[in-house]
Structure formats: C-alpha cells, structure tokens
C-alpha cells in the first residue's frame, strides 16, 4: 500500500518524478540544482517577496517564484537561460541600489548572503544608484543592534521572531521606500518585548541585526596590567567554534580553544561546565525540596536568559515556578569574584571576568542589577559571543587551528585550569536541548533512590525536534517532564501548565532552537548550510554527547571539585551562602507580551 502521490515534470530538459506537494525550489534541490534565493528560509513560512528564485515555466507567460510555486504534472521548468540569469541579476542590482556601499567595513563582510548572491549572479558593477535609506542605528540594547539601513526587507527576522520564538517583536512598519522593520512604534529593543535571543541576527542575510560588540573592552582589559583577566567558556562553544576555522560542524575543539584563550592573554581559563554541575546540584536540591514539601511544581529551568526574559514579559504568572538558580555563567562569575579572588589573594575589582557564550542575551543578563556585588562591581565584566571570540583569535593571527599538532609554546591542545575547570559529562551536555533535564535526572535519580544505580542516559529527553514530554518512574514516584527549545515550542508546554492541563514536575526551556548550540551568538554557518537546520544542530549536539560519553564522571554531584567547594567554602546545597551567591529572583516586566 503506497498511496503517496507523485508528480512527473520536466526539469531543465529532463523528465523527473518527485512527491506531490514539493515546490519547484525543493524539487530542484533533489536533483542537485540550487536555485538562487534570498528571502526563502526552509524553516520559516514563505514570503515570496524577493523574486530572486524566479524560473521559467513554459506557457505561463511570466517567470514564477520557485520557492512558492508547487510542481504539477507535465510542467516544463527551466531554471537557467540567458534571460533568467539577466533577470535575477537585475533583481539583485535593484536590491543593491539603496544598499550602503560599505562592505569592507561591515560586520558581515565575507559571510553576507546578499554579498555572496551578488557575486554568484555576476553583479560586477552597480548600474543603479537609488536613493539611500537614512535610518538611525538603534544600538541602545545590551545585546542586539538594529541597523535599518542594511535591511533589504526580506522579512526573515519578522518570521523567526513570530514563528520560531513566538515573541512577535518585529514587524514591517509603513510602506514603500519608507518601510522599516522594527518593534512596535519604533521602540528601542530593550524597551520592547524583545527577549534578546538574537535569532534575528542569525537569520538576517545582511547586517540589519548584529550583536553588541564587546571585543574592544576585552582587548583593553587584556592589555591592562592592573587587571587579572580570566575567562570561562560555555558548554556549546567547544562544539561550534571549530566552524569558524573551517572545521565541519560537530567537531569538538576543547583543547585548541583553551590553548587559544591562553595565547590571547587570559590568566586562567575556566569551564562554565563546572558551574553547570554546580547548577545541577543546587537545582536538584531545590526540586527535591519542592517535591517533598509544597513548593510550586513544575520547577522550570533558569539557565537561558532569553527564556527568563520571555518568562518575565509573557508568563509572569509562572515566575514562582522558575528555579531561583542563577545561570551557570553567573554562578561561575560569582565564584570567580569571591571564592577564586580569596584563593589568589586579589580584590574582586582587580579581577576581570570574561564569559564566552553562544548567546547574545547573556550580554543583557550580565548587566541585570541582581548580578552585581553589593559594592557595584559586576560579577561578569564582559560577554563575548562565539562569533566574537572566533574573530579575536583570527585577528590575533593564531593560525594553528587547522594544523595537526605542532610543537610551539606547548600548543595546540590544553586543559582548563583547576579547580573551576573540572566538569562531568553532565555539565557538557548543558549546551544542548534536553541536556539540563538529563543532567538533572542523572542526579535526581540517585537522590530519590538513595543509590548510585539507575539509568545514566535519558535519551527520551533529547528533544532535537523542539518539543518533548516524557515520564519516568523514579523510586516509585512518577516524574513527568517536558523539554522545549524555541520559545514558540515552549508556549505549548507553558499553556498546559497555566491551564492546569497536566502536572509536570520538571520543565526545561531553552530559548533558542536546539538549545545553546543554536544560540544567537553561534558562528554563521558555512555557505549553503542554514541556521536552524536540524542537521547542523544535531551535529553540534552530537559533539557534546561524544564528550559526555568520553568522561569517566557523568553525574554532576560526583564532580570532585564541586564536592570540595561545598566542603571547604559553600556549606550545604541551598544553604545560606549558596543561596546568596548562586540564586536570584525575577519580576514581571513591561511591555507585556502577547502569548
């Protein structure tokens, strides 16, 4: 029984058969023909607005947009002819006619889709000089800069914000030449419902959205002799940074990354994974307290600052459910400015903490007033995205990345500094969707059953598809869990909680598709690979699972450095000192988002 319908048509002179329902663009891809495209994105709804993907369909009388026309039986499609090539080139020239001519000084130089497209279509001179847009740069946000003059109105940012993130902060305002993409009434990004996730940056084909740059302040700190500059790197950096140096997605690069950071001049290189382990110990403790007492369930994870911002603007009624744990980044920074400062005998103000994150919302998190010491010293001084670190390493001239091991200053593979660089496999998988849940379950099982037996891997919570629910029997207690990545997916779970439809015990939310591995600060993928591509995200996640599998210790509470920290300094999980340093609070914020 196979009632799948097929369509047979002519593609560039050859008869081909494909499944019914494909667009011309999708069908052509099956046969190795990549029709040029710009506004199209396979993971977003169709816009059909740029017309770059036009093809010639016989007897139609006009060119058709391949992205939004489905194939039919007997059609005769030509994807290339001198006329189509000329028409596509004209279309891109017209898109360029009001675009700034500043490619060499543009942040996206070299990885701009518009630039690549113009090159591949053969635009070699600009025949049209149109009126230029003259919108101001909106850079008031801690995280996301809006550069409307670079915008070509493809609408990808509007779609990702509404469809994938469910935030709907952006729309096209006005009409015609004056059309501009911005938050309602042109509000500043920080004063809108923006959650700072940065997915608009990732899908933008040009540089209309960018992260707020922190490289200047980090260079300055590194050359300041009065500062002891240290760095921590999030779990997902090691799974993606290699892409910036020509490695295929999914190449783990922990050792080379650590070596490069030391080479840049950081006095110590710590692993945010250590703080991830610490988070699990604190959060499991908090969960068990709520399970046995009468605290609000489900407990919802709190590592993702984009998610926390979404919670405060869209679901303030669920604030009591969020774990009070600070994110691993801020926990680590808190320890660096207190525990570590004491150890090395330095004042917190002389220690400069840089965090390398896959995330632009972390830049915003670092500036939240709760994350400062009482005397006004920030816990985290600067946050770099993966992209910014890649640029710094390249800019410095460190070139050993792509070489096999070479003997030069003991490079290229090094270990994190101790003790805040020791992490279990559970800390590593924090960087991918389901990772925090799996790490929590690994520890909670043992705490509930009282023995270290029980399953180690919880593959049912690895929610690569975006949304997953599962139930586990832990020592006679049924635990219902849910994992969501991408805030539109998260809404499905959160609405169930608000409506009281299902009693969940633990819910993990990561703001970005795929979790931190798909964060708004991750490398722009190589040409031909889409951000949001599930295969790209799977490969980055696989790198983290490989690291986890290779570790001897894979349960957070077994981390010897974490144990020692509690014994010699922190006291008990959830105790007074732990609470003061490792926990935080949230509050409803305006403007309120529309769910």
């Amino acid at each position, binding site marked *: 029984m196979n009632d799948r319908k097929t369509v047979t048509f002519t593609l560039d002179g050859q008869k081909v058969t494909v499944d019914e329902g494909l667009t011309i663009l999708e069908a052509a891809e099956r046969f190795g023909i990549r029709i040029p495209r710009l506004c199209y994105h396979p993971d977003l709804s169709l816009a059909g607005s740029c017309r770059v993907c036009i093809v010639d369909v016989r007897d139609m009388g006009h060119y058709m947009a391949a992205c939004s026309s489905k194939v039919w039986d007997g059609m005769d499609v030509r994807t290339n002819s001198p006329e189509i090539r000329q028409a596509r080139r004209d279309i891109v020239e017209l898109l360029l006619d009001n675009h700034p001519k500043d490619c060499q000084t543009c942040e996206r130089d070299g990885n701009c889709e518009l630039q690549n497209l113009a090159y591949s279509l053969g635009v070699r001179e600009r025949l049209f000089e149109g009126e230029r847009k003259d919108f101001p740069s909106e850079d008031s946000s801690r995280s996301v800069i809006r550069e409307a003059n670079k915008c070509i109105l493809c609408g990808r940012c509007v779609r990702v914000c509404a469809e994938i993130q469910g935030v709907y902060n*952006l729309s096209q305002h006005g009409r015609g030449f004056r059309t501009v993409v911005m938050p*309602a*009434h042109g509000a500043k990004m920080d004063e809108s419902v923006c959650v700072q996730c940065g997915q608009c940056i990732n899908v933008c084909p040009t540089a209309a959205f960018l992260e707020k740059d922190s490289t200047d302040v980090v260079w300055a700190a590194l050359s300041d002799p009065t500062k002891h500059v240290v760095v921590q790197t999030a779990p997902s950096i090691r799974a993606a940074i290699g892409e910036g140096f020509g490695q295929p997605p999914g190449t783990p690069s922990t050792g080379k990354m650590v070596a490069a950071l030391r080479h840049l001049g950081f006095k110590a290189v710590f692993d945010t994974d250590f703080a991830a382990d610490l988070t699990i110990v604190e959060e499991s403790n908090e969960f068990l307290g709520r399970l046995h007492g009468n605290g609000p369930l489900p407990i919802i994870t709190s590592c993702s600052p984009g998610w926390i911002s979404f919670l405060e603007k869209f679901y303030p*009624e669920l604030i009591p459910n969020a774990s009070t744990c600070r994110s691993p980044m801020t926990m680590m920074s808190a320890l660096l400015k207190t525990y570590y400062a004491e150890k090395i005998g330095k004042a917190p103000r002389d220690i400069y903490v840089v965090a390398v994150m896959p995330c632009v919302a972390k830049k915003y998190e670092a500036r939240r007033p709760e994350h400062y010491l009482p005397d006004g010293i920030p816990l985290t001084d600067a946050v770099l995205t993966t992209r910014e670190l890649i640029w710094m390493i390249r800019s410095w001239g460190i070139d050993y990345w792509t070489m096999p091991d070479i003997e030069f200053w003991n490079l290229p593979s090094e270990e994190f500094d101790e003790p805040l660089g020791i992490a279990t496999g559970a800390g590593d998988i924090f960087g991918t969707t389901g990772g925090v849940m799996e790490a929590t379950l690994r520890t909670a099982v043992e705490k509930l059953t009282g023995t270290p037996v029980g399953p180690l891997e919880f593959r049912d919570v690895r929610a690569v598809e975006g949304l997953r629910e599962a139930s586990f029997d832990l020592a006679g207690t049924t635990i219902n869990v849910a994992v969501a990545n991408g805030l539109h997916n998260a809404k499905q779970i959160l609405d169930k909680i608000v409506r009281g439809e299902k009693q969940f015990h633990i819910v993990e939310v990561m703001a970005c598709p795929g979790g931190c591995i798909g964060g708004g600060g991750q490398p722009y993928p190589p040409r031909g690979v889409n951000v949001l591509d599930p295969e790209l995200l799977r490969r980055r996640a696989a790198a983290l699972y490989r690291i986890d599998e290779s570790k001897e210790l894979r349960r957070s509470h077994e981390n010897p450095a974490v144990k020692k920290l509690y014994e010699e300094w922190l006291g008990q999980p959830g105790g007074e000192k732990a609470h003061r340093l490792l926990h935080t609070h949230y*509050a409803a914020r305006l403007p309120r988002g529309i769910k």
Partner: protein
Amino acid sequence: MTTSSNTDNWAQVEANSRAALPDDVVKFIEECRRRPHPESHLISVLHKVQGHLGYLGEQQLDAVAQLLQVPAAKVAGVATFYHFFRLQPRGKFLISVCMGTACYVKGADKVADKLREELGIEFGQTTTDGLFSLEAARCLGTCGLAPVVMINDEVHAKVTPDQIPALLEKQIRKARE
C-alpha cells in the same frame, strides 16, 4: 495549585488598556473576542478607535494589542501601513495638497515641498504646536484651479510656493483671534 498570582501583572495591564480606550471600543473588542479569529477584526477595531479619537496614538494601539491579544508589532504594522489611519491628533488646520494629475503637472509637488519646509513635517504629520496637519489629497475635482490646496473647508486656487508663508501666517492669526 502550582502557580501563585502575585507575580502576574495582567490585572493591571488590562485595567490600563481599558482606561486608554473609549467604552464603546472596549465593548466592541469584547464582542470580537467571542467570535472565531478575533484577530481578523483588527482593522475594524482601529477604525472605531479613530472614529472616536480622530487618530491612533501609541497608547491606544498598545491597548488594542492587549485587549484583542494581537502582538503590538502587528497592530503598529497595520496602523502604519494604511494611509487612512492617522497616528497623531489632527491639527486645528488640516492642509490638503491635491496631488492629482492636473495639480501635479501644474507644480503641486513644489507647493508640497514648500509646505513641508515651512511646517517642518511630512505628509500625515502634525506640527508640535498642534496647529497644522499636512495631507496629500487625490484630486479634489477642481482641476481648472490647479494646483489646489485646501485648508479645512477653504479652497485655495492656483497656489504657488511663494504664497505659502503668507497663507500660513493668515491661519496663525486666525488661531490667535
């Protein structure tokens, strides 16, 4: 129960939104909310707001967004797309420049440029003192008098750019009376 309501700001947001809109509009939105696809009534709601207030202010647009549960960015996108919707209160004097074909070839564009320059506003905007609003009209049916400018109900025929300062001065004097 799993949630507590004291962190929820909805009651306050809802009360503020209701206060920003005329009662009739709030009632109309409530009716729309009971129908399928309430968001499809957005344009009707905006018409009603403008009918009551003469324009759509940010506060009103945000209130519509909350009560109709349509994202504010979408509401603002719709309101700014259609020429019919005014985003600022109308000035005491509404200046309509006819940009129809006959007026245009007779130099309406230069008249419009002069008005923009003198008033410091664009079409669809109102001066900060609330005196003048500037609009483009599509043929007022008096092509023999081209180019035509209307100021409230007064028709001004065969207007040239150099007449504009005096014309505006006259209105300002009227406003002072």
